[in-house]
């Protein structure tokens, strides 16, 4: 029940441009009281103008993220080298070749072009990230809103079971189920990761629904005799949307990491499919065998693709949370 906002807090719309109507007296204890060095810390200060702007780095991340989505959607139409074309069909291909004009990121141990495999890999990562978190939100989010709205028995039962599942490490559950459900495919991985994300989504959505549901305007709607449907869709959902969107983004990043872990353990999407995790898994065994003299490109580029995509998604999610979360500053 710690999710309730303090009773004396002010509730402006999360999107309000104007400063709150009342002075925020409870902030005085956080005001810098002569620190060791002078602090001109906007992060801890309460500069309204600064909090509204998202900063140039945020937009860089958005552009990079959009680029990834674009590549994932239209990889077929970009006239790339066929990511499956290997020395098996064309023996003249350079094997383990370094970056050249025709193979920007070099070629792997089977002569496949790493540049086009990295671009096609975005497709696997993003479809798993978005597909799975969407399943998680459809089931976990619905249950979370329902449990927090109904309270009582259904809430108690659902919460206890979700928290029990949450205590168990997801990776063991995923490994076990990828071992059962053979042959594993992209869709199955999406479904498994989606199910694995349900408890976490449930917890966040339930918490913010509880907080939203205890506000005065929900009470007012109830008093006026609004239907449950209307209260949920017109009063509660718009208010939990900011939290939901930022958690959605962070969830995408988390699930991409989890899929990569499965791929590195060799149980994700089957081998010839170009995915970053698979490329790392295949490359790592070659990278270090001293006799082959393989260059860094086998794992460097998929690794960098992972880093940059995750960084941009996390930064977008984090900034959005900071931007929308009016309660954070009041804690």
């Amino acid at each position, binding site marked *: 029940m710690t999710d309730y906002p303090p009773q004396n807090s002010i509730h402006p719309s999360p999107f309000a441009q104007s400063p709150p109507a009342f002075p925020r007296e409870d902030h005085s204890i*956080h005001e810098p009281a002569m620190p060791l*060095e002078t602090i001109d*810390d906007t992060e801890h200060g309460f500069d309204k103008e600064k909090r509204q702007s998202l900063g140039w780095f945020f937009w860089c991340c958005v552009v990079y993220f959009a680029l990834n989505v674009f590549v994932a959607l239209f990889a077929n139409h970009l006239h790339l080298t066929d990511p499956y074309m290997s020395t098996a069909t064309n023996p003249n291909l350079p094997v383990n070749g370094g970056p050249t004009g025709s193979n920007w990121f070099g070629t792997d141990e089977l002569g496949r072009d790493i540049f086009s495999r990295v671009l096609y890999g975005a497709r696997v990562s993003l479809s798993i990230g978005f597909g799975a978190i969407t399943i998680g939100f459809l089931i976990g989010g619905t249950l979370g809103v329902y449990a927090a709205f109904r309270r009582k028995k259904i809430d108690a039962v659902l919460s206890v079971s979700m928290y029990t599942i949450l205590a168990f490490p997801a*990776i*063991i559950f995923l490994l076990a189920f990828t071992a059962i459900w053979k042959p594993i495919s992209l869709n199955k991985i999406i479904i498994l990761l989606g199910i694995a994300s349900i408890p976490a989504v449930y917890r966040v959505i339930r918490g913010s629904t509880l907080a939203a549901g205890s506000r005065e305007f929900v009470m007012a709607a109830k008093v006026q005799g609004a239907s449950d449907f209307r209260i949920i869709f017109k009063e509660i959902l718009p208010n939990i949307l900011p939290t939901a969107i930022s958690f959605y983004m962070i969830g995408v990043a988390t699930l991409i990491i989890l899929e990569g872990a499965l791929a*590195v353990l060799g149980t994700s999407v089957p081998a010839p499919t170009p995915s970053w995790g698979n490329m790392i898994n295949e490359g*790592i*065994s070659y990278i270090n065998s001293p006799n082959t003299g393989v260059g860094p490109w086998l794992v*460097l580029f998929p690794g960098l693709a992972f880093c940059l995509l995750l960084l941009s998604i996390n930064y977008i999610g984090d900034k959005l949370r900071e931007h929308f979360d009016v309660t954070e500053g009041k804690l």
Partner: protein
Amino acid sequence: MIIHLLPGSPSEAILGSGWTPQGAAQLNKQLGLDQPLVTQYLSWLGHVVTLNFGQDYITQTSIASTLKVALPPTIELVVLSQIISLGLAIPVATFAALRPNKLFDKLANLGSFGLLSVPTYVIITLLYIPITQWLNVPNSGTASYVPMSQGLLTNLESLLIPIVALSIGSFVVYFRVFRADLISTLQEEYITMARSKGISRRRILFRHAYRPSSVALISTIGVNMAGLVTGTFIAEQVAAVPGVGASLVGAIFQPDYQLLQAIVLVTATIVIVVNFGLDLLTGYIDPRISRD
């Protein structure tokens, strides 16, 4: 117990191509697998109390000896990475918190946020090139694990990359928590008071600021433990270290229920014991907490 839903059965794994229904039934009886699941589980629990994890169905070796081989590298990885990450996070966070939003703080913040989003297995793969190929650290390549009995230095060299990768992962979390907490502690009125009395900065930090700030750090270590253990398992797989993670993945694919159960039990116990110890430590550092 959910693990029993896995397809395949130990009898298939042991008998292989010589599998017949009669042979399997006999073997199941011999191993006690014909008993109901609840009976199997209870008898297993009874043995575990005396630290007898039983026999591995498949390799016919005792699980305790498997664990005895697998635990040392895993524990070594976890302990060393925690020492390194804490040893770095505290001074770096102090330096950043003393001058918040100045150049060093901004750089450290940006770097830690960037690293926060990079999974351990990517860090490991990206570390191989600089460490083994440029610095030429001996024995640091993949699948080159050397047990500690063959010399401490070679052992450390062979574990260098996973240790560094795990340290980076933990360092980032600890740095962010400790920096944020220290900044708010340094703004408390009693620190201003101590400053005005002319107490040196070193004394203020060590006597007045670190103690309240370390409470959040210690509880973060506890929360981090479970994630760290699974992270270590994956790191072991990537770096081909024959630790608990490797046994776990092997046990899932066999399927080897006994070993799997034993590993999950031992890991969970260690995590719970460490968390309990950290809770006691928190109570010692801040007696107000244990009084509640």
